[in-house]
């Protein structure tokens, strides 16, 4: 326990770094992913093609490579000077752009789970496009999207550690700071693992709770 209580400042700042990456990256992924997901199910062939290309390319790119491009290749291109804030922003963008593909696929498959007959019945009743969406399609799609979306966010939480390789402070970088302070690295990493198992268990519990609450009665 001493390794935590003696270095409380370090643990709290790194935990905060992980949470910032998680929340900001998650928000960016949600916004971008919803846009791409909408493009992939849209009636516009060009938009569908662009969405498919984006998803297929980024999904087959290692996250480390995305980070690498954002941390090393982008700053000289845009003439950025690497300060702490710029590194953090770039890391959030890398996480968001990578995770957005998974968000988009989750939304797309969620919409595909709604039977076509549902929307056809709603149109036959004379509902407008907005009513069909808000009253019939999206409520059903939302429920089947929640559990896989939580899995995407659990993966995002674990992926935040990759930022440690690109000088952004988070739980993954606790090890190097603690070894500078002469602490036992092995114990430090084991504690990081414990924190992650706890955080993932928390998210899994939320996933189960939401799943039970929003279960589709079929």
């Amino acid at each position, binding site marked *: 326990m001493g390794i935590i209580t003696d270095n409380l400042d370090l643990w709290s700042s790194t935990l905060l770094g992980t949470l910032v990456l998680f929340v900001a990256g998650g928000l960016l992924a949600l916004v971008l992913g919803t846009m791409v997901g909408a*493009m992939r*199910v*849209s*009636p*516009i*062939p*060009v*938009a569908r093609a*662009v969405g498919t290309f984006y998803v*297929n*390319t980024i*999904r*087959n*790119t*290692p*996250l*480390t*490579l995305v980070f*690498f*491009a954002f941390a*090393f*290749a982008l700053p*000289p*291109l*845009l*003439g950025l000077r690497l300060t702490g804030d710029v590194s953090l922003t770039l890391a959030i963008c890398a996480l968001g752009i990578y995770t957005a593909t998974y968000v988009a696929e989750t939304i797309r498959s969620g*919409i*595909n789970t*709604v*039977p*076509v007959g*549902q*929307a*056809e019945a709603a*149109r036959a009743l004379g509902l407008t*496009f907005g009513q069909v*969406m808000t009253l019939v*399609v999206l409520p059903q799609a939302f429920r089947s999207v929640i559990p896989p979306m939580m899995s995407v966010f659990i993966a995002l939480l*674990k*992926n935040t*550690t*990759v930022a*440690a*390789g690109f000088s952004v402070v988070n*739980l*993954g970088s606790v*090890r190097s700071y603690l*070894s500078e302070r002469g602490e*036992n*690295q*092995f114990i*430090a*990493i*084991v504690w*990081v*693992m414990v924190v*992650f*198992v706890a955080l*993932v*268990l928390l998210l899994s519990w939320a996933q189960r709770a939401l799943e039970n609450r929003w279960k589709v009665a079929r």
Partner: protein
Amino acid sequence: MSSVLYDVPGPRAIARNRILGVITVLVVLALLGFIVWRLWDTGQFSAEKWDAFTYSNVWLQIALATGRTLAAFGVAAVGALALGFALAIGRLSDHPWLRGPIGAVVEVLRAVPVLVFMFLLYYGLPVLGIRMEPFWAVVIALVAYNGSVLAEVIRAGVESLPKGQSEAGYAIGLRKAAVMRLVLLPQAIRAMMPVIIAQLVVTLKDTALGYIITYQELLFYARYIGSQSTYGSPIVPATIVVGAIYIALCLILSFVANRVERRLRRTAKLGKGVAPVDDAMTATRAVAVQAGLDDPEPRR
């Protein structure tokens, strides 16, 4: 085409979709134009930036780095499959004293980020007097994580099978091990093949994490060549080259996964088509079709 989201478009919707299509094209072109302008403006298209890639030695090093990436992937994939089967069978065991601990191990391994596990092996274990090459740290971490994920996949595959399958196995006098080996696992693996290959794509992608613990794979070499000032620090060209190699490798593996999935779906349909017995379909022919000796289309 009618979908759950929109009806067959009328004249006004067609016109609106055209406008939206043009806007999409313009946005994409603007984005591409911006990237090309930045590449041009910072001189990334100049010959000296790409000078490094005219030396055969550089390409030899890139080939060697690709080999190291693939070596880590190959060993990790085989190990992960082996560990996955072992853990899956352990989790499906009838004995609570085996099922419980293995379930806990699988959950913990799945919850720990792969990179943190690599840190534990590469930076943590030397404290206890165990040193290993970065290669083994990468491989063991990937085996542990992907093995536990595959264990869950295989377990889900076995549990999705109808109960009658194992009951039939027991009824003809097979033991537990034989039911698992001869009846349940072959069907579960077949059903889960696309997911298993998709997980292997994840394994290939995660070998790039080795860069962070100084395993000399592709990204490591890109960083090295990108910081050589004799070549004019070509970090952007190096990222483009290495990124293209990584994406190509992953796309090939994903392509295989898609092909396997499509093939499985096709054969699954063939099995269903047998069920409604028509005039030309005698019982003997139905059996022959199921055994793959005859085609399901009635012969004229």
